[in-house]
């Protein structure tokens, strides 16, 4: 089995005649936390839709834990956990019911699911709330439930599409900390799209994307060195020419 959790090679994508992704090539290794940074319209969400197979691609450009998303989609998707930008929980169901539904879709028996639900919710301090209806939860708690859900089937790669937008500082910090711990201790690989650069730690990988192209790739220090800047935000503006956008 490949040690690469995600391999994207020469990925192009167009909406009709309008090309939005150009020759994207990058890898994420097991246990690595990678951040996808880029201004609005850079192509981040399109890339996520391709990795999750909501959009199709013409060639075999994406491999997830060694499985090609086009030719072996079911094996690849079984190794993927996703938290979408918009909340995708059923607001009228309880936390537990939402998680049981997801477990069923992943082929996990209700008995095993209950054990996994307890494990995941306890790690995120949400177990006490398992019987609450999602509509009654605040934004931070809903996000935690979505993260618990994305991790229930023990994926190799976790995709996070701006999961902390709109959350208070404490909720953001708790999610950032939890995800980094998972990478370190469980070998989970993460691809995290964000605008919030303080979520990136020194050891994380950054993929800077702008107008559908990768502008830079490396650690925080690499990017700052490359652009002769002292802050990641400065490096971002320099690479994307997006100051004031």
């Amino acid at each position, binding site marked *: 089995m490949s040690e690469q959790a995600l391999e994207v090679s020469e990925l192009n994508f167009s*909406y*009709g005649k309008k090309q939005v992704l150009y020759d994207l090539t990058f890898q994420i290794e097991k246990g690595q936390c990678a951040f996808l940074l880029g201004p609005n319209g850079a192509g981040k969400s*399109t890339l996520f*839709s391709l990795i*999750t*197979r*909501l*959009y*199709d691609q013409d060639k075999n450009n994406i491999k997830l834990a060694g499985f090609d998303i086009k030719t072996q*989609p*079911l*094996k*690849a*998707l*079984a190794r*993927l956990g*996703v938290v*979408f930008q*918009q*909340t*995708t*929980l*059923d607001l*009228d*169901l309880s936390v537990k*019911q939402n998680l*049981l*539904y*997801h*477990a*069923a*879709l*992943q*082929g*996990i*028996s*209700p008995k095993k699911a209950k054990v996994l639900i307890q494990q995941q919710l306890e790690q995120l301090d949400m177990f006490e709330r398992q019987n609450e209806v999602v509509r009654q939860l605040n934004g931070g708690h809903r996000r935690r439930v979505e993260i618990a859900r994305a991790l229930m089937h023990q994926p190799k790669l976790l995709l996070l599409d701006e999961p902390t937008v709109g959350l208070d500082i404490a909720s953001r910090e708790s999610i950032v900390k939890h995800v980094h711990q998972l990478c370190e201790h469980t070998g989970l690989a993460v691809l995290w799209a964000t605008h919030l650069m303080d979520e990136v730690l020194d050891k994380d990988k950054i993929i800077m994307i702008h107008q559908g192209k990768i502008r830079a790739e490396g650690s925080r220090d690499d990017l700052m060195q490359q652009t002769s800047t002292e802050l990641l935000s400065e490096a971002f503006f320099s690479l994307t020419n997006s100051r004031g956008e």
Partner: protein
Amino acid sequence: MTHYWFALWGIVFRELFRFVKQKERFLSALVRPLVWLFVFAAGFRAALGIAIIPPYDTYILYEVYITPGLIGMIQLFNGMQSSLSMVYDREMGSMRILLVSPLPRWFLLTSKLLAGVFVSILQVYVFLMIAWFYDIQPPIEGYLWVLPVLILTGLMLGALGLLLSAFIKQLENFAGVMNFVIFPMFFMSSALYPLWKLQESSQVLHLIAKYNPFTQAVEFIRFALYGQLNQEAGLATLLAFVVFLMIAIIGYNPSKGMMKRKGR
């Protein structure tokens, strides 16, 4: 294989649970056909005389005639409601969780359809129970015979809704389609008047009604309710189901591009 069972159970359970929680949806699904039965049918009883036509072996009241049509109406509305919820789910994002799960898309969509059909069958039996107290009493075996028929008719009408949901971009567009689909389908069918009566007024309308899949579904239900099998209507319903489902699956297939084209 167990994966498929768990997933099917999960999808059906979710739909049933949502339905039970949404009491207004249950009530409105029930009130609609009951208003037609108690008010419309009572008013038109005198105006529309019904001759003896199969499967009935005697003169019947107009209420008795339109009952199968109203059962079809429940399933038609339910099919459209399910697809409306799919458009909503897609806009809200929860459809993504379904489509990202590691199962073939045709299976996920068919499971979603089946879940909707279970809900519609619950509504139909509650409706039939109320109708029984209103002296609409088909033979007891009819209640059993109609069950497998309701599964197929429900699947066909649900597949039509699914097909529409694959091609509709936003909820706003959906309201228009409801008007262009539900009402023409319902009025240009044998739900409210027998086909021969329609033929007396207009040949064109008669032809449209004859080939309307909703007519076939209603006739299939009508015969089953009286313990008879209308093969022609059954085959037409099955054919319509297969065609609608195939187009819907193509619509939701990422490589065929409905999702792609929408850029969702």
